[in-house]
């Protein structure tokens, strides 16, 4: 088990953060660190905007950085579970990104 970093962007809606944190608790995954920002600079997410055919606006999107101690298998499962949350737009570890349910072999975040 090594420390791994996950990045999520999600809709800034009431209850969205609790769902992410709750999922870690419910599935027995541990959170080492957690950092939440509201996204101001959307230029880094141009690819995602294009893929989703949408335009992000101020105060719409939050970015979460989570560090957790897990094995490879569990990491994949965590990514898939997070991807299932309705308010999560994209979630990625170092190598892959789940974007709206589609798995991409790149780190878009």
């Amino acid at each position, binding site marked *: 088990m090594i420390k791994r970093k996950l990045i999520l962007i*999600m*809709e800034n809606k*009431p*209850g969205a953060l*609790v*769902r992410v944190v*709750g999922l870690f608790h*419910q599935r027995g995954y541990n959170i080492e660190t957690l950092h939440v920002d509201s996204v101001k600079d959307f230029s880094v997410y141009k690819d995602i905007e294009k893929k*989703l055919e*949408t335009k992000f606006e101020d105060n719409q999107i939050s970015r979460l950085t989570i560090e957790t101690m897990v094995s490879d298998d569990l990491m*994949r*499962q965590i990514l*898939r*579970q997070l*991807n*299932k949350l*309705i*308010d*999560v*737009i994209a979630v990625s570890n170092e190598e892959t990104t*789940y974007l*709206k*349910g*589609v*798995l991409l072999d790149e780190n878009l975040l």
Partner: protein
Amino acid sequence: MQALHDEGVELIFGYPGGAALHIYDAIFRQDKIDHILVRHEQGATHAADGYSRATGKPGVVLVTSGPGATNAITGIATAFMDSIPMVVISGQVASHLIGTDAFQETDMIGVSRPVVKHSYTVFNAEEIPKIIKEAFYVATSGRPGPVVIDIPKDMTAPDNLFDYSYPEEAIIRSYNPPIQPEQDQIDRAVEAILIAKKPVIYAGGGAIASNAEKELFELNKIIDAPVTNTLMGLGIYPASHHRFLGMLGMHGTYQANMAMHNADLIIAIGARFDDRITNKPSKFAPNAKVVHLDVDHSSVSKIIEANVAVFGQVKNSLKLIKDTLEKKLDSYNSATIQPWHEQIKEWKSQHGLNYDLYKDQSDSHPILPQAVVQHVHEITNGEAYVTSDVGQHQMFAAQYYHFDKPRRWINSGGLGTMGFGLPAAMGVKLAFPKDEVVCITGEGSIQMCIQELSTCLQYNLPIKIININNEALGMVKQWQDMNYGGRHSESTYQNSLPDFIKLAESYGHEGIKIEKNSELKDGLKKAFAMKDKLVFVDIYVDPSEHVYPMQVANGSLENMWLSKDKQT
């Protein structure tokens, strides 16, 4: 109410209270949607759930805040575990009171969060149409599940007016369930099928959710593989088909579990390798490649690693596999799996279930629960909707009532909720008033939602309740017999059971008591002949009977108890 009507809702199950009174007044002043008044909010959720399982349409529930909402939780969790589409609208205290520990305030969103697919709070009345549209879309698409909408009382106040329009479609940019699988996944699945010598199709509730019975049947016309179903999948492949192995898992048939264990290819369709299926995962099907078709990414390779994963609506995936396989037919010869069929036939003849138990109608032995189910099957021509509760009676029903069609077998598989059977049967009967609806239950389970007998009278729901009465929490007792030296801790009632016949009669229904094997068949016939009546049939069965086969704890699928003293 207008939004629900625009969504196509015809039926709501609910129970009123302070925070929902504005909505209830709106119900009174319309006549498009019927409301069924249950006797407990748990009953409302199970009834909506039963309605949904039988029809494929989402079930709708309306409850008030606080205790109304918390009473609904068990039913929401039941629907969540079995991926049943449901929309639950809960009243909430007025916005300005939220967070003040107001009368009947509970954080419903928080309490329900681990057991819903998604949830919404209404902050502006104008959002109601959009939220309802989204809630139904989320509940019914992808891997279905329950969605809660919490509505503070002021949001439904009659003076809170706005320009109403119902959205045509829900677009949620952060939600995109897979529909069509990718062709390269399909190609890999087909390659695996072409070289398999011992294939097994293992289909579960996801195949029913996707309405894939035709596609599965058509595909297997080509492959000709043996098929097993999970407890949730019964009916997706006709039980009377000669390739059907029966249910697998904890109380699965000998041949189904042996086939899975010895397979070289498992084609998993909308099934999730639950622990009641795999036994110990590290010992599960050691020689099998796994092709897994599912709509939910997180179900694949969660317990058992899939060699080929096909993401999409399984209905579409099955169709594409068939189309692709058809093009390669010259390299497929179903005769190569003939020895496999021979092997399965042998297993079946060695230790298959004994379907002749009901033929002995003498009083030389007490009534056998298996025989009860078989008689019911015969009398209803195998065409009834059968709901069940949880326990031995549920397993006997699953083993001995043969389902040839999907959505006929209605039970709480994932959560295993006692009390599910009767309210679920109400939901089914309301959806299909002309069809026979049977609730096969136990004297323990039926008492958990017995109050719904009153609802059945109010709405005239002539369900047949088959109470397999072993005067014990039989499944608990069976585990105590097998794993706790026969110490029956708190699993019997010391002669405190009610007189179910009088009970049924006091609710305005009929009751029939059957105690002797020789009276079983006629008693049941009499009950089913009373077409317009709810009949409570209280059947005293052999209390020492166990459910077999039963998986040996921590073993592989081939390790089964076949009777009290015999293991494989």
